[in-house]
């Protein structure tokens, strides 16, 4: 059963330089209790997908397509209805915990706020619950810490607070946007461990550029390039049988896999090249790739790829 189903989703931004097609005709579905990894490099549009699901986009954005959550199209829900869903049913852990916590509100209050809003607890009980949440994300002496301001917390601890805040109302679906960005290696390992444990029975969309983190946490992985998905498959398939040249190139450019670079740069989201968006950087590109835009095709085993040459 799919908890979330995204059909033909398009998010465009109006800017002075032209229309930024951050998300372009994306289809994907997330099952219950599944962790789905969305991987891509800077500026490929992956963060926008999370914000689109939450309907947290600036007014310059136009969205098309459908986002079905439990069969209900989130793009048609009223703003009030959406407010009830945010935090209670779907939570997002935004990237960059340092700027995502309000500097002038106490940490406990920031967690308790969501609890008060959605669960109708009074101030005292909500605070007690907030302290429990801090404890569950392993923050030592949580009742003292709840009364402190965010600047007293280290980067790793702020990320724990963000996780506690996201999970405070026990949502059934979590979007985590680059939860380990900027953290030291040993702290990153702690956070990954914590998130695995805390979200075991929840569905999650993990947005990241870090394949290692995705490999640790995800059941399925999708790769995003220039506003569209180019490949998605169960975790093992991606690592053992990558089919799209971008996926192969991405894997090979990792230091562990020999540091073989992909030549060139990603295109800007304003003008895409004709044909396959990857053709100018691709070793396998043929005349067909320069003219026609490939569709997503299933290769069996739930493995989808957007490439004319995937079978060969």
């Amino acid at each position: 059963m799919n908890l979330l189903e995204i059909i033909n989703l398009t998010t465009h931004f109006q800017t002075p330089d032209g229309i930024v097609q951050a998300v372009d005709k994306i289809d994907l579905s997330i099952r219950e209790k599944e962790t789905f990894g969305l991987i891509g490099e800077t500026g490929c549009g992956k963060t926008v997908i999370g914000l689109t699901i939450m309907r947290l986009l600036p007014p310059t954005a136009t969205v098309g397509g459908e986002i079905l959550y439990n069969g209900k199209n989130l793009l048609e829900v009223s703003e009030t209805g959406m407010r009830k869903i945010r935090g209670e049913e779907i939570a997002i852990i935004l990237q960059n915990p340092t700027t995502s916590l309000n500097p002038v509100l106490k940490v406990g209050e920031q967690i308790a706020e969501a609890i008060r809003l959605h669960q109708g607890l009074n101030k005292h009980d909500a605070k007690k619950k907030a302290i429990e949440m801090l404890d569950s994300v392993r923050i030592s002496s949580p009742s003292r810490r709840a009364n402190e301001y965010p600047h007293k917390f280290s980067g790793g601890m702020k990320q724990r607070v963000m996780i506690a805040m996201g999970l405070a109302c026990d949502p059934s679906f979590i979007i985590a946007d680059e939860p380990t960005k900027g953290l030291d290696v040993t702290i990153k390992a702690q956070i990954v461990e914590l998130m695995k444990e805390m979200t075991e029975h929840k569905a999650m969309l993990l947005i990241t550029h870090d394949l290692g983190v995705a490999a640790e946490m995800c059941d399925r992985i999708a790769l995003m390039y220039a506003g569209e998905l180019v490949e998605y498959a169960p975790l093992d398939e991606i690592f053992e049988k990558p089919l799209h040249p971008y996926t192969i190139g991405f894997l090979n450019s990792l230091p562990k896999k020999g540091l073989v670079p992909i030549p060139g740069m990603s295109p800007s989201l304003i003008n895409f090249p004709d044909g396959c968006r990857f053709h100018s950087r691709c070793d396998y590109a043929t005349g067909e790739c320069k003219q026609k835009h490939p569709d997503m095709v299933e290769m069996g085993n739930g493995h989808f790829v957007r490439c004319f040459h995937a079978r060969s």
Partner: protein
Amino acid sequence: MFNYVLKRILQLIPALLIVSVASFSIIYFAPGDPAETICTGPDGNTNPESVEKFRIEMGLDKPLHTQYLIWLNNVVHGDLGYSFRSEKPVFEHIITAFKATLKLSIVSLVVSLIIAVPLGILSAIRQNSLIDVSCMVGASLGVSMPNFWLGLLLMLLFGVYLHWLPVAGYGAGGDIEHIILPAITLGTGSAAVTARLMRSSMLEALGQDYIQTARAKGVPEQVVIGKHALKNALIPVVTMVGLNFGYLLNGSVVVETIFGWPGLGSLIVDSINMRDYMMVQGCMIFVAVLFVAVNMIVDISYKYIDPRIHYGAA
């Protein structure tokens, strides 16, 4: 915290010393011999004998640095000398004038905040709307308007043509009718500055990531603005109140002169025109110490407003 206050006070000492030297030297830069200047009666006559007596009495025959130290010692003990016009202690005059200035400043400050803060917030949340544009045009005009001109125009309209309010004067201890026009004149500039600052800091706060966090929690938009954004946006505005005090003191020079308000501003202008240099000297050092103290208090009080500021070792 204690360390910080101590450090701030220690930092002020060199600046205050320079201030004191500057104020002390006013008498020496003033045209004419200070003793003669001081002993010149309102009729313009000087008595050489009394000048000589005064010289010795005031220690003016001693070397300059000794004179300075004597003077500084007196100042520290609150003795700013005597006004030659009234022959009363300078300090007494200053305190009386300061009370009038304080009254005027507080009323202007309150008026300007009441107008500026809500308008600034409204402009920010309705960015580029008619309200926003007209507020900001108004603010630009307010900042650029010479306050002596505004004062005269208000006087002309409400005092001369409409007879609603007294044209000038202090009334019986600065009563309501008398304070309205000078307070509006004085408050306009700071209201304009505050409204712009309120708007821009609100806009900045609304663009921060934590606003997104609050919305993602399902917090209603009024609460996002009223709690999450406003608390942050007010910090620079409160800082401004400290700066505003300097702004108001500056404005008081002109506004008090126009409206005949017997505060520090008109005191210093009158004293200069009357060549009452002891008084000028006293005013300068008083105003400087006052201004520095206010700035320091504002600085320290940030700690209570902005939890991000550490007053630690660094």
